[in-house]
């Protein structure tokens, strides 16, 4: 294709993207079609991938297809395997895509569709994709080393230690946050609880089939499991309509919390392969299928967005969570824009599969763009709802009132009309007793997704099936994240405790397994329990804490990336990772400061503790307040400690940059030695 034709095509893409962005940014007072968001996102992704990722690949990282990757040099057919780039792309995307990009945008929709959408697109292209890509390249050039190892080698011992603490903390807070989403999705929902309960016998059946009937045929087994799960969803409808069965599966938040904590401990401490591995496959199968279906549904229906571009809650008075648009929109949406957790995947399995160094661009940068597009779809699912319905589902009883009529009146008073009858009809349509005060994001997303699906397939008659399909998908996947995360946390704790007493580091020693599993479960279980008893709905304290810790981990990853760029003699390009790093430091430190010290009790942990302290002093009989006060102080301390640790890493890294740039330390990185690639030789 001649150069001028390509130039014209890219100019057209840029023009179209700019027009779509202007449309979503400038329209006020009228609903817009969701396809404008899709168009703006896809044009931006195309430009970002074609130009920015190419610049990073050529100029910043200097990718060289002649350099053999660890998959080629250390090929052992087990961990290091040269794999087709599209296969690695799929593998990497399946590993990074979780419930985060679905829940975060749904919560951030309280500000309107505009702030979240812009952050998802711009944050991903300039921050998240860059982080994933650069960390992947760094790991590939260091034989697949992990983020914590790279931090220790390139930044310093403190950097390595802080990265380790940040990883453990984010795992604990992440598990509590996602477990809370499940509790709120299944609370008083016999249909949802039955469906999830049925995945246990289904997974056991899959395990037996996989082990004894068709060994190794995982795709076939997962398809059978999926068919059985769909049957369980239909069965759930019958259960919810049969009073005796419905009573058995109607559980309170506290009961669900206990069950999930016991499940997490059992999954980590007991050899339950027959249950966990098949369910892991089943959840991945459902996840990939659901994301694809949601994309198809949005394209088929092209729904209108009913949420305004901006709501009055940008001033920090939002009912879903407290805090102004800056910094909280950028904390709430982590995984769809910038997620530190991805750095663990980019420096985990993926670098060991890369066949050519140049393919890291597609896998690192490209897979994060795909993740970002999932977040845009979640934003659409939340914003197709009437704003009144969105706020009725997502707002806690402590803000809008527990009685349907009171809640509807409060929300209507904000200018988003909704009635108790309308919500009762909607609850009936999706097979629930009520949809008021279902905080956590999952029910809101499920209602939005059900509306989109019902518009394209089956109509209102199957709305309840689609709703419970979405709930099942989210809960199933989150439970998989929960058991995998608990085991990962257990291994990390065992590694650390092994330094103090060797037997504790032995991963097969049962007392150590029980102790460390118990410690990890106790940590996230405590935060979960605390959130369930929170009068402000739990998500108000837990999700910002999760967002802060996730993006602090991203700050650590970007510190490592910047240090490597500087030490490799390319300091003039350090802005590529330094700009997102400075942004994340500004956002997370501001959010952390506000969460700890803000005078508004809904926002600041300390102010809330003082408020409760006053209430306790006035009425000493209310002993339950002591626990809430302790929880607030604990949240404040955890936030402050995390921020302080990351500040230490940033300062340590900045000192390294200064020494290298001023010539006091030679610019030298610790990469694996250059070996020429056979693939490139053969191609030549």
């Amino acid at each position, binding site marked *: 294709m001649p150069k001028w034709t390509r130039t014209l095509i890219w100019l057209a893409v840029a023009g179209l993207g700019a027009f779509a962005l202007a449309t979503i940014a400038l329209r006020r007072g009228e609903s817009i079609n969701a396809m404008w968001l899709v168009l703006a996102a896809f044009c931006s992704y195309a430009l970002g991938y074609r130009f920015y990722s190419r610049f990073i690949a050529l100029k910043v990282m200097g990718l060289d297809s002649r350099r053999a990757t660890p998959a080629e040099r250390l090929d052992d057919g087990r961990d290091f395997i040269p794999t087709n780039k599209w296969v690695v792309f799929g593998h990497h995307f399946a590993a990074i895509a979780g419930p985060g990009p679905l829940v975060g945008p749904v919560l951030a929709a309280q500000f309107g569709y505009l702030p979240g959408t812009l952050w998802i697109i711009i944050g991903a292209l300039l921050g998240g994709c860059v982080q994933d890509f650069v960390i992947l390249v760094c790991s590939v050039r260091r034989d697949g080393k992990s983020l914590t190892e790279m931090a220790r080698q390139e930044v310093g011992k403190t950097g390595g230690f802080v990265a380790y603490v940040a990883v453990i903390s984010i795992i604990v807070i992440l598990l509590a946050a996602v477990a809370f989403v499940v509790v709120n999705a299944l609370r008083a929902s016999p249909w949802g609880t039955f469906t999830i309960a049925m995945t246990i016998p289904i997974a056991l059946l899959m395990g037996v089939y996989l082990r004894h009937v068709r060994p190794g045929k995982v*795709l076939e087994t997962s398809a059978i499991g999926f068919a059985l799960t769909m049957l369980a969803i239909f069965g759930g409808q019958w259960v919810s309509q049969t009073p005796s069965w419905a009573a058995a599966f109607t559980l309170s938040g506290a009961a669900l919390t206990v069950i999930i904590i016991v499940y997490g401990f059992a999954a980590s401490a007991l050899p339950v392969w027959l249950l966990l591995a098949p369910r892991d496959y089943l959840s991945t199968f459902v996840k*990939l299928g659901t994301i694809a279906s949601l994309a198809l549904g949005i394209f088929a229906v092209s729904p209108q967005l009913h949420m305004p571009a901006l709501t009055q809650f940008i001033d920090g008075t939002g009912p879903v969570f407290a805090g102004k648009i800056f910094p909280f929109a950028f904390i709430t949406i982590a995984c769809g824009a910038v997620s530190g957790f991805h750095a663990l995947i980019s420096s985990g399995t993926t670098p060991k599969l890369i066949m050519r160094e140049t393919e890291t661009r597609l896998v690192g940068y490209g897979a994060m763009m795909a993740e970002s597009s999932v977040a845009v779809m979640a934003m659409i699912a939340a914003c197709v709802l009437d704003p009144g319905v969105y706020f009725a589902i997502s707002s806690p009883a402590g803000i809008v009132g527990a009685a349907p009529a009171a809640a509807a009146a409060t929300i209507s008073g904000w200018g988003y009309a909704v009635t108790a009858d309308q919500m009762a009809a909607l609850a009936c349509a999706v097979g629930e007793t009520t949809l008021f005060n279902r905080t956590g994001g999952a029910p809101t997303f499920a209602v939005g997704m059900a509306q989109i699906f019902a518009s394209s397939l089956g109509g209102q008659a199957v709305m309840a099936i689609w709703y419970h399909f979405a709930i099942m998908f989210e809960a199933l996947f989150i439970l998989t994240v929960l058991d995998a995360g608990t085991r990962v946390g257990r*291994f990390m704790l065992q590694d650390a405790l092994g330094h103090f007493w060797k037997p504790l580091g032995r991963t097969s020693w049962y007392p150590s397994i029980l102790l460390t599993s118990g410690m990890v479960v106790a940590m996230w279980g405590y935060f979960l329990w605390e959130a369930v008893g929170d009068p402000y709905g739990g998500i108000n304290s837990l999700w910002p804490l999760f967002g802060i810790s996730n993006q602090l981990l991203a700050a650590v990853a970007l510190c490592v990336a910047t240090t490597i760029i500087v030490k490799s003699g390319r300091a003039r390009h350090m802005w590529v990772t330094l700009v997102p790093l400075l942004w994340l430091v500004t956002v997370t430190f501001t959010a952390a400061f506000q969460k700890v010290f803000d005078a508004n009790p809904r926002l600041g942990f300390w102010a809330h503790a003082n408020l409760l302290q006053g209430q306790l002093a006035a009425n000493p009989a209310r002993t339950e307040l002591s626990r809430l006060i302790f929880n607030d102080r604990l949240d404040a301390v955890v936030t402050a400690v995390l921020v302080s640790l990351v500040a230490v890493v940033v300062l340590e890294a900045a000192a390294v940059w200064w020494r290298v740039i001023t010539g006091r330390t030679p610019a030298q990185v610790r990469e694996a030695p250059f070996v020429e690639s056979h693939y490139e030789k053969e191609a030549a």
Partner: protein
Amino acid sequence: MTDASVSFWAKLRRGVELVYAALREIFDEAAYDRFLLRHETASSCAAYAAFRRETETAKARRPRCC
């Protein structure tokens, strides 16, 4: 069939093959095939159990993203 349509079907087939290969990698079927090749053995209940034992620790240490 014209050259263009042949090329289209070939590309489509290649695309489907790649998606299938990605799914086999994600769902560990490809890893099991490599295990069988490495141990020069045929698929069986015992071989699959051995494969699971070999991969279990590595899989358990692999985080799932949020």
